[in-house]
């Protein structure tokens, strides 16, 4: 804003060092080959240059323009449209707190406020150690796991203020952090490479996190006559032996019946508020 350039146009961005350029060109050829028209490779290539430098630099824009035979203006127009392309250096871990209506109401607003205070950064800012960039994000298609926090686009479901604070503390201290769904965290640059279309090379990354989160299974369990989470198996399923694994621990079948699944309107078990 305050910099007046006095009509002097910005000089062209420097190119990547030859070794980097050669490596990225090989990757770019692979990406371009996936599409009938080379320009379709632009979004993946922007993810690719982001995997090199952590954000989309002017050098990255120049590279994309050159390999796709576009102008840097055309590439910049695309970069500025999409929120996943960062345009300034940012942290190794991007912590996104969902503050769209449902997550916000369920606690996302409280989590985001507290994390800003705890980390002493505002929206889109990075901690001094360069570890964590905090931002609020829009709905990430996990509303049945609200409130949701994403770190480098892996799911951290059912968060609380305390769990989110622990999470960022662990990230800053370099402790291992496991998402509720998804693979053990890699850095933002490594994530960007997967987004460019290069499969995660780490053994076990695809399997990590199991087949489905608990909320994804709640309807299926009910349809099979099993219990919903925190509730009790209805006696119906006692007919044919099932080869499915038990809902929880082996003796859950004779756990105290707190709420009959057949009559959810009338809880029969202890009600904490009144019982205390």
């Amino acid at each position, binding site marked *: 804003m305050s910099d007046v350039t006095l009509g002097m146009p910005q000089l062209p961005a420097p190119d990547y060092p030859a070794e980097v350029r050669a490596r990225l060109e090989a990757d770019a050829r692979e990406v371009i080959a996936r599409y009938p*028209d080379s*320009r*379709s490779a632009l*979004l993946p290539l922007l*993810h690719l240059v982001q995997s090199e430098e952590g954000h989309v630099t002017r050098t990255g824009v120049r590279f994309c323009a050159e390999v796709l035979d576009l102008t840097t203006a055309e590439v910049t127009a*695309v970069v500025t*449209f*999409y*929120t*996943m*392309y960062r345009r300034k250096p940012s942290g190794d871990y991007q912590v996104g707190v969902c503050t*769209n*209506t449902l997550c*916000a*109401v*369920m*606690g996302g607003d*409280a989590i985001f406020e507290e994390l800003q205070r705890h980390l002493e950064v505002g929206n889109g800012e990075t901690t001094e150690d360069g570890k964590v960039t905090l931002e609020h*994000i*829009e*709905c990430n*298609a996990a*509303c*049945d796991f609200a409130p949701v926090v994403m770190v480098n*686009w*892996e799911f951290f479901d*059912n968060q*609380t203020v305390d769990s989110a604070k622990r999470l960022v503390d662990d990230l800053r201290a370099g402790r291992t952090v496991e*998402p509720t769904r*998804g*693979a053990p965290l890699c850095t933002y640059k490594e994530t960007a490479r*997967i987004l*460019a*279309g290069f499969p*995660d090379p780490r053994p076990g*990354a*695809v399997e990590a*996190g199991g*087949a*489905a989160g*608990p*909320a994804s299974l*709640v*309807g*299926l369990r*009910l*349809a099979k006559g099993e219990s919903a*989470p*925190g509730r009790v198996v209805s*006696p119906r399923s006692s007919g044919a032996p099932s080869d499915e*694994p038990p809902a929880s621990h082996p003796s859950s079948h004779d756990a*105290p019946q707190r709420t*009959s*699944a057949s009559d*959810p*309107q009338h809880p029969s078990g202890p*009600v*904490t*508020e009144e019982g*205390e």
Partner: protein
Amino acid sequence: MTVTTELNEHSPEKLLAPVLSAFWDQPNAWTLRTYLRHEGYDGMRKALAMAPDDVIALVKDAGLRGRGGAGFPTGMKWQFIPQGDGKPHYLVVNADESEPGTCKDIPLLYANPHSLIEGMVIACHAIRSEHAFIYLRGEVVPVLRRLHEAVREAYEAGYLGTAERRSQKLGMAGLPGLDITVHAGAGAYICGEETALLDSLEGRRGQPRLRPPFPAVAGLYACPTVVNNVESIASVPAILNKGKEWFRSMGSEKSPGFTLYSLSGHVANPGQYEGPLGITLRQLLDMSGGMRPGHRLKFWTPGGSSTPLLTEEHLDVPLDYEGVGAAGSMLGTKALQCFDETTCVVRAVTRWTEFYAHESCGKCTPCREGTYWLVQLLRDLEAGKGRMDDLDKLADIADNINGKSFCALGDGAASPIFSSLKYFREEYEQHITGGGCPFDPARSTVWADEPRSTHLGVNA
């Protein structure tokens, strides 16, 4: 306690019908091996043995309608593709699931990606396409990993690949080649709009295109293109495998079949519930434990934030395309976001409107300017700085967006404004007369009702 083995008509076993979600609880559900154990790729084999037009006719007769929101008949979309035109045809799967509240395609692709791949192989056979794309929103890396893996497995098994390799591996002569490209987006809600998605897939800013021409005539690279939602395509293999009568045995005449309902918000058990179209929210709440204990339903969306809000009086509306339409809303994506009496409707609508303003692509004036001014007015109301005539102004601006903007994002932005003013005008007025928001946001959090004491009184 009496133990009963009979199932009454209100039991979840009778009301739900897991098809796509039927084996999500199996270990390694996402792998080809597990999928094959559950009749995986049987539908594909049947389809490939049929004439393409017969596949289109079957899907049309089954009555499958688009699951991405609009409910357009899937078979008809396929039929619109001109044949013998000498151009390449493309199938593009819309996996840009970003509509607030919507959370069905992401768990589906995470647990069962092969249902989509199989559906795509069938759809490509039907529309004579040799290259298909999955446009996945970028913000879901765990799902991207599994799609990469599923596509790799499908190539290895010969479902995808060159003509020779597919014909040889599948033991069927004369199959054309087929490629699937997995494409990660970069964070833009508007790319869920099908023509914006096509622009984005062509490497441009994701802005909607003028229609006509429709994608069926001039879509990706100006070639005939089918754009379908993930769940629509993933539902196709079961139709091929079990037949149109089976599919039509669920749901209603005009809205047949099964679908994923996503329950979220202040409910006891949020999650995915797969059942026949036409189930009601009351049935879903009854079987799943209702609202969180001690609270009442205040308002809900039938299919994401772009579908007009409904209230307690709509609990018995059949959740199919016609039923929800008759109640003044839209089935949308079946994202049932439920809010209880602790939630301020003005706060909820303000946040959604901020979302639409942020995501407006800027191409057309009514949406770009209208959403901006809606946000200004709503923020004033929440802060107690509103005036009574602001409410009419809100309705007026929403009316100038609705139906007058370039694409459906604008209509979606107007929906929460109109419907909240219709059902909760008094609450808006309270914000003005009372000098601000009367609600305590702390009471609506998921942990608001947690007991202070750690002693839970478990009867061990």
